[in-house]
């Protein structure tokens, strides 16, 4: 009885997820394209040059959203991993595993675009002495390690557990990235996008930046849903192959 109940829950949740996500897919995909089109147009054609950074400020609209997403996606992976270890929800490791390559892509973009922004504004593409740069690079390596660990262990249950532990240990890098600009005041500027009571970024830059960030977020949700569904299909295919072989 207990066995059959577990089996029903395990099957039911991914089934329900497939139903809901198939409705969400076209909406999230469409919304992502609209937001990114509006954001790109606004950022490229309707923003003035910055009085200090001139046109290099245009890089902000692709750099800041990518950097935010790298951290946001990692927090989701850490949260799902904790949920997987504690509550054993059948979708948690699917969610964590599917998000990782996307988070790694955003983090890599943050590093590349940041480097291209650093050269004209700081005079260098890279500096090992800057804590924000190094802790962000570390995040990329943590993503790589997490993905490699999933691929290294054949048994999915063991792989999920090991990857979840790694994800939680790696989460220690998140506060370091966030506070690095305050603890060590070197090259990278402090966090100033959302400052209560003014004094932060000018609204002329803030609005297109927020639209781009929302566009990146919805794009991520769309791709995340697609990749989770892919993972569920692949697991179902493996189970069917075993049934076929038996």
């Amino acid at each position, binding site marked *: 009885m207990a066995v059959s109940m577990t089996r029903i829950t395990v099957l039911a949740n991914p089934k329900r997820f497939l139903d809901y996500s198939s409705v969400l897919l076209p909406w999230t995909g469409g919304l992502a394209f609209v937001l990114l089109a509006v954001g790109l147009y606004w950022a490229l054609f309707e923003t003035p040059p910055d009085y200090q950074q001139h046109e*290099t400020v245009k890089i902000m609209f692709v750099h800041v959203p990518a950097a935010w997403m790298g951290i946001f996606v990692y927090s989701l992976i850490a949260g799902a991993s904790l949920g997987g270890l504690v509550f054993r929800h059948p979708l948690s490791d699917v969610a964590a595993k599917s998000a990782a390559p996307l988070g790694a892509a955003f983090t890599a973009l943050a590093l590349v675009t940041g480097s291209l922004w650093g050269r004209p504004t700081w005079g260098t593409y890279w500096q090992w002495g800057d804590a924000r740069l190094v802790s962000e690079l570390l995040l990329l390596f943590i993503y790589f390690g997490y993905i490699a660990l999933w691929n290294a262990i054949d048994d999915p249950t063991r792989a999920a557990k090991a990857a979840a532990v790694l994800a939680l240990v790696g989460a220690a890098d998140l506060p370091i990235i966030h506070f690095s600009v305050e603890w060590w005041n070197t090259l990278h500027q402090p966090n100033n996008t959302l400052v209560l009571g003014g004094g932060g970024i000018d609204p002329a830059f803030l609005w297109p930046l927020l639209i781009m960030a929302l566009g990146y977020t919805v794009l991520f949700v769309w791709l995340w849903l697609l990749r989770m569904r892919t993972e569920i299909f692949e697991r179902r*295919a493996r189970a069917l192959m075993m049934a076929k072989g038996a």
Partner: protein
Amino acid sequence: MADFFAMGGYAGYVWPAYAASLLVLVTAIVTALHGHAKARENVRRLELEVGEDDKGP
């Protein structure tokens, strides 16, 4: 128009940043869509094959 592409002399930094972003995001979209279509088709095929001799619960 030429002014726009020149980006006030910073074209060599601004455009590579946008090109890299576009390349990575388009690759992520294409891989996700392709992987999804392939995996769904594979399950559909296996379900037909297995379904013939095993109706299952």
